[in-house]
């Protein structure tokens, strides 16, 4: 049976292809995103409250290293097979080394709807995985130039809306605990999946608008946008098992690894590597990889996690 949120995504794609005048006002998109980010953060925070953060330090370190590794895998492919300019290759590598919160939300909703347990504190790992690829991307584009204003870069990253709301939500959930958040559950938890449906409707519209661009940049970017997440998901799966996640948690981490950023990284690249073409990286991330992960990837990564746990777990 189809989950209705997937149908909302398809509705958005079809409406976009059909050149419907449908669109979510950008302020509503902001509102919906805020609810999703805070909700994900708070759910994670509530779980964190139940365990010692110190125990999580190794997991966080491991995931951080994955975030450093992924762009190094992507860059040569983009630069030499794709013959992209250095700045573009570095920027796209950063997008794919980082994560998409929307993909995380869909993966989490998939687990919930199939009654599969997963570690909610993955929200914390989500934040950790968001950041290293940005740093690597800048270095790949510029070298270890003394001119890079790392302070400004770090501020750009941590002051971004996404990180503030996720981290803020994590801390609020962590301090408040399960009973504390009870009174704000109706907005942040009960409405979560409906908000995710609206979000996906708009993402479908956005994805369909990228198709014209994709045509222009040709086949390589499409192949990369499908192959790269598959490779990343395998690494994510391996890491998930290694750090002791459940099957569901492993699949969600694989989806995170497979996901490509479309908010934090483009914003950071625009500031730090402005000569990279944002149209190109967003076409790949929003036009290929996000739809692929939502429609095909997530169930696949779950099968992968099942198999891998049976073999190695």
């Amino acid at each position, binding site marked *: 049976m189809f989950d209705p949120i997937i149908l909302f995504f398809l509705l958005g794609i079809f409406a976009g292809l059909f050149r419907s005048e449908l669109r979510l006002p950008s302020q509503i998109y902001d509102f919906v995103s805020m609810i999703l980010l805070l909700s994900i953060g708070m759910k994670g925070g509530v779980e964190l409250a139940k365990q010692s953060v110190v125990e999580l330090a190794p997991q966080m370190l491991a995931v951080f290293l994955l975030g450093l590794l992924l762009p190094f895998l992507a860059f040569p492919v983009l630069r030499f097979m794709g013959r992209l300019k250095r700045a573009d290759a570095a920027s796209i590598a950063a997008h794919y080394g980082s994560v998409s919160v929307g993909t995380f939300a869909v993966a989490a909703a998939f687990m919930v709807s199939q009654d599969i347990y997963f570690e909610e504190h993955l929200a914390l790992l989500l934040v950790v995985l968001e950041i290293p690829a940005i740093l690597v991307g800048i270095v790949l584009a510029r070298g270890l130039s003394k001119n890079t204003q790392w302070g400004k870069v770090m501020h750009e990253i941590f002051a971004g809306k996404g990180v503030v709301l996720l981290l803020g939500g994590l801390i609020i959930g962590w301090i408040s605990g399960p009973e504390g958040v009870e009174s704000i559950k109706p907005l942040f938890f009960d409405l979560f999946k409906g908000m995710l449906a609206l979000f996906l409707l708009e993402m479908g519209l956005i994805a369909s608008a990228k198709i014209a661009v994709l045509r222009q940049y040709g086949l390589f970017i499409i192949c990369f946008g499908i192959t790269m997440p598959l490779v990343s998901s395998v690494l994510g799966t391996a890491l998930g098992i290694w750090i002791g996640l459940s099957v569901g948690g492993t699949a969600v981490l694989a989806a995170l690894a497979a996901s490509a950023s479309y908010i934090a990284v483009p914003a950071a690249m625009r500031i730090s590597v402005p000569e990279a073409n944002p*149209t190109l990286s967003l076409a790949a991330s929003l036009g290929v990889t996000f739809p692929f992960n939502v429609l095909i990837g997530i169930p696949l990564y779950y099968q992968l996690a099942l198999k891998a746990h049976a073999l190695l777990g």
Partner: protein
Amino acid sequence: MSNEIRTLVTIITEASIEKTLAREIEGLGAKGYTISDARGKGARGSRSAEWDYDGNIRIEVVCSREVGDKLEAHLQGKYFDNFAMIIYSHDVNVLRSVKF
């Protein structure tokens, strides 16, 4: 009326650099600016403002000819190569010219 002439510089560019631009405009000696949201199409394709990332802004700066020239030179040097941006300017009559 006892008007005086100033230059109005209008910049249309990517929303994501709003804060940086505002700082730079002040730094170059303009005494104020006005910003509104916009969408549009140009050499760098369509910017539909459907989405935070995608929007344009329209910045107006009323200033002296010298500040205007400095501003245009600065923006041209720093942004024209990598950012969706157009600039145009013309003379306007202002009241309270001391403000500009």
